[in-house]
């Protein structure tokens, strides 16, 4: 079960924040119990009964009022210092270190790139475990927000501005995330999957992602390749080792290896891929992928080709 909850932290940062949250939760619960208790007690104890005299006309008591000014002041002072401590633990300044991962948010998908190795992928981020990774976040269009609650703080992706944050994972596994800042009609389908792997698995994955896919040989896939290059596909997408080199839509060099399509709308399967290309506006209304008006035969061929891009 994958619950994208900050209460189930899987990294040092998320754990620190969760610890602070628990403290604040306990303090809040106590305050609420005191307030609600006093309100309900007065409501019962002092409710009017027939024949009640006029109650004592009490205008206030400065000492008492100073007390309930100073106590909250002390509580928030403690909370302030705890917050500052956690801020520094969770979000140390990047100190000009180059980022390990670059995140560029788009309406409505994520572009992830690894500057050191040159890997580029979409919507699915792979990271090695037990390593604090610096990621830089920006946006190609409107304001978005990168949020993987179990692994890192949330950070806004703002056009023409670079934000930095740290991400890490303790254990291998799948961690779900999503865009957390409203960014237009398809904001709901801008989901993130973080696959945390052992260093060995991660470097294997990286190697596979760096490999340039072989030219298709099987006739159907060859036909699909031709469709891709001759139709509008290649004017938005990139596939390494081919003339298609645009970066308006997601990089498709290894689309066959991803778990989901359309930033989380479906699982990646040949049937879903074909349905998606046939009518993107049906499954993600408002998204920027147009209906390409392909013939059914072209569609099948194109799907066959893309599925080969493992």
């Amino acid at each position, binding site marked *: *079960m994958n*619950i994208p*909850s*900050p209460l189930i932290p899987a990294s040092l940062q998320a754990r620190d*924040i969760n610890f*602070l*949250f628990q403290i*604040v939760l306990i303090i*809040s619960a106590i305050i*609420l119990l005191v*307030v609600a208790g*006093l309100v309900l007690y*007065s*409501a019962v104890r*002092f409710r*009017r009964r027939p024949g009640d005299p006029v*109650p*004592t*006309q*009490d*205008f*206030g*008591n400065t000492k008492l*009022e100073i007390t*309930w*000014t100073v106590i*909250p*002041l002390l509580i928030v002072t403690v*909370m*302030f210092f*705890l*917050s500052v401590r*956690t*801020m520094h633990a*969770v*979000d140390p300044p990047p100190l000009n270190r180059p980022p390990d991962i670059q995140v560029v948010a788009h309406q409505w998908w994520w572009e992830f790139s690894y500057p050191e190795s040159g890997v580029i992928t979409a919507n699915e981020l792979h990271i090695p475990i037990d390593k604090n990774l610096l990621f830089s976040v920006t946006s190609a*269009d409107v*304001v978005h*927000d990168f*949020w993987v609650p179990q692994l890192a*703080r*949330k*950070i*806004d992706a*703002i*056009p*023409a*501005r670079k*934000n930095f944050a740290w991400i890490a994972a303790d254990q291998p596994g799948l961690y779900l*995330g*999503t865009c*957390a*800042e*409203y960014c*237009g*009609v*398809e*904001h709901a389908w801008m*989901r993130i999957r973080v696959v945390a792997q052992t260093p060995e698995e991660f470097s294997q994955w990286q190697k596979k992602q760096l490999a340039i896919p072989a030219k298709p040989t099987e006739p159907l896939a060859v036909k699909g390749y031709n469709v891709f290059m001759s139709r509008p596909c290649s004017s938005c997408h990139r596939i390494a080792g081919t003339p298609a080199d645009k970066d308006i839509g997601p990089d498709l060099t290894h689309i066959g290896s991803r778990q989901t399509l359309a930033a989380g709308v479906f699982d990646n399967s040949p049937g879903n891929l074909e349905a998606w290309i046939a009518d993107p506006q049906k499954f993600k*209304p408002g998204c920027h992928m147009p209906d390409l008006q392909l013939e059914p035969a072209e569609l099948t061929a194109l799907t066959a080709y893309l599925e080969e891009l493992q």
Partner: protein
Amino acid sequence: MNQMSQAQAVPRSIRTIPEYRGLLSWVSSVDHKQIGIMYLLGALLFLLLGLVEATLIRIQLAVPENTFLSPDSYSQIFTMHGTTMIFLVGMPLMLGLSVYFVPLMIGARDMAFPRLNAFGFWIFLFGGFLLYFSFMSGSAPLAGWFAYAPLNEKAYLFNSGQDYWVIALLLTGAGSIATAINVIVTVFTLRAPGMNFRRLPLFVWMTTINSFLILFALPALNTALVMLFADRQLDALFFVSAKGGSALLWQHYFWFFGHPEVYILILPVFGIISEVIPVFARKPIYGYGFLAGSTVAIAFLSFAVWAHHMFATGLGFPVYYVFAGASMLIAVPTGIKIFNWIATMWGGSIRFTTSMLFATAFLIQFTIGGLSGVAFAAVPIDWQLTDSYFVVAHFHYVLLGGMLFGIISGIYYWYPKMTGHFLSEKLGRAHFWLMIIGFNGTFFVMHLMGLFGMPRRVFTYPADIPYLAPMNMLSSCSAAVLMLSLLIFFANLIVSLYRGEQASDNPWEGWTLEWATSSPPPPHNFDKVPYIRNRRPLWDQLHPDLPEARLEAEHEAGGASR
């Protein structure tokens, strides 16, 4: 004419006051009471629309991957819901009660500028209609109620819906500023003889401070709106980062207005609670000075907390320190108020009318909203929970569990004064208990949705994230109960106008000046304005054996601690 002078002698119901008969007497009116009532009616109309939108939202979210609404319609509906509830419901409810009761409570015959008062109302109504007209222009606005740049720019939203949004908010904003100026001048110049600022009813205190907040906060919004309009219509590029503008600048402008706005909506409610609790507990307000003073503190601090809406934007540590510190500090004056209200109940003789029930629920629910607010001031917690459903829970506890419960308490309290009829207590109790269940059922669970990773403003959520589906279903079902409770409220407002029990001039034995005149008040408010010697001008009349002057003298001498 004969009829008129007869009815004027004993105005028993607002329906029979000759000056208030006929539509023309309302649309052409500069009487603060009629304008106040029209503000409230306008707000209730838009509340109904906002509730329809809320219903559509909860139907869409009841089950995962629902296709009841398209993503486009959903975005329009939540944008209109938020904009409506803040600008067309919260503001006019608050302004309506202010313009109705401030003159009465200070013993004035009307507002200082009656025609400006009418202008404020009509420009608000026009702005509201204009906003809804956008549905007919092809698309309502859909960038959310805070419409972040650059999503609000023409490059992303080319429909004119966003332009309607800009103009509508500019108009209602201008109306709010006009009314704020009017309230300030009224309170500074038209107080009854003897009513100095230490004898001002707390509702008037808070409304006055609130008017200063409006005066300083709304211009920031209006500025940003004009800049956005220039961007959209004249390619001015203020907020277009790609061409040298700054998307983040919008957020600064918006929240410089937006956070004080929250206090603008809640301060008059603090005033209502400070009137209702003493009257029904039969005790003076506890710590008048602290209550008034803490309101001034809130007003100042509210201008130093706006960036806590932007902790995830990467502004940097120095900014976080200042805004986290100020945001936590603002909890202190707010906490003072809660304890002062409880102390007012303590030792009292409390009569649980519907009005008092709502005020009591306010105390607890507003505390929940306040505490989750403090959690957001702790920057790292904000880094996790901002823009999640935890925020949705938080601000509904403040605005619905706090503001609306307080306003409703005020309406049950003042309805007899305004109309001459009591609201039905029977319907009132049904309304109250259903609203408690419906409200808490709808919104408490949203804290958990946020903690389970559900971001706000999504038209749907994946079916395979555990627990989200049952939590949303619970919320949607409770929302139905909440809607039912509000329908009972609407029915009560209408039915009681015709069948409600006749109210006397001072049915709750209140002690502020509005109770010194008839119910409903005659058009000129008072035949004779008394000289004000203390904070409870009507106390001596009700308790001749316990004169206020003696009680105050005893308190000065330290006798109150007995």
